[in-house]
């Protein structure tokens, strides 16, 4: 394993090998010491000898005392996600367009024609009470028509109170 560690610090492992080596190093205290020493050797050869060989135990202890951080996984922008988003957008535009075109077709129909088709069924459904004649109905409708009386059309100022008029 230590040979993989040596290659790892030189950036000479393929991605899968590197991941295995990192995992192995994380799982082993011995491997961490080797990782430390191999870096010290490189530093010393380049003239950067450390003041001490000791492992930074204080930092490690302080780190252990920290609550474990857990970063939320960043969403991967993949082709599938982009394609799905595009398809959803196209579908939405399509549905809205279709609804719009249906509305405009209805509005294209002449008003009179629409009125006829609307009123016709209602007219057909009028049923008269048994024994009632159409003329009776006309009398009934005349008596109950909602047209206001002519005097109601007069303005308020011109209105003569009923009592005064008498």
């Amino acid at each position, binding site marked *: 394993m230590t040979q993989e560690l040596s290659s790892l610090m030189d950036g000479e492992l393929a991605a899968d090998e590197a991941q295995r080596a990192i995992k192995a190093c994380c799982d082993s205290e011995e491997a*961490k010491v080797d990782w430390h020493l191999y870096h010290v050797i490189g530093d010393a050869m380049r003239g950067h000898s450390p003041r001490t060989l000791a492992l930074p135990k204080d*930092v490690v202890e302080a780190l252990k005392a920290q609550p474990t951080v857990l970063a939320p996984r960043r969403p991967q922008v993949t082709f599938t996600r982009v394609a799905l988003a595009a398809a959803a957008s196209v579908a939405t535009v399509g549905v809205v367009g279709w609804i719009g075109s249906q509305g405009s077709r209805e509005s294209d129909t002449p008003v009179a024609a629409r009125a006829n088709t609307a009123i016709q069924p209602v007219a057909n459904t009028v049923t008269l009470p048994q024994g009632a004649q159409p003329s009776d109905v006309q009398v009934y409708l005349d008596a109950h028509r909602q047209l206001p009386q002519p005097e109601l059309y007069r303005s308020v100022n011109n209105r003569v109170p009923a009592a005064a008029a008498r």
Partner: protein
Amino acid sequence: MRAKGMKSLTFIIPQEANKPFVAPATQGGLAGLAPVQKPPFQGRMSDREIDQQLVEKAQRGDKHAFEMLVLKYQRKLERLLSRVIRDPAEIEDVAQEAFIKAYRALPNFRGDSAFYTWLYRIGINTAKNYLIALGRRAPTSTEFDSEEAEGFEDAAGLRDINTPESELASKQIAQTVNDAIAALPEELRTAITLRELDGLSYEEIAQIMNCPIGTVRSRIFRAREAVAEKLRPQLGTSKDKRW
């Protein structure tokens, strides 16, 4: 035993143990070896990518991965901080605080910059805040640009602030490393020198030493192991007894 077509390397004397390991200066790099044009790496994980892997592992809750980053960058960060703070004990404290701050801020690290550049900024800001809290003058931001973080390799500052004891300890470590390298068989010594001092890839070293890449990998590992074995007694650990 000497590898075919190779000359022996010169080593620094113990009195100069704190200076870098020096291969003889000849035209074109190492003695008798032609300069090499660096070919691009293919299919290998770069240093930055390895750091990113460790960061992502730590972001998923693996503290051991962050420990590996601490072990890798602690000395470099301390060298950097020595440009701002002079007391070695204070440097250690500030470095520790910077690592803890970096760990806490890890969920915010997106990998837009290299991990060390990010750590550098945290370290410098921690050092400035530390000095301000003590009522001392903090360096201006222009004195420490983040751009220099990647290439920072100056050890002069740290040597200046070393106490006599730490200076001695540092020299002792350097001497142990240099002695161990000097005692290596030549092919191991050349391989590790080309790697650590010249920064060559295994492929380039294989071309120079006229051997397979697997052999280079093995030689560098054996060289490191041989030197590490000399250092372990100073560390207080051996293969049988670790921290």
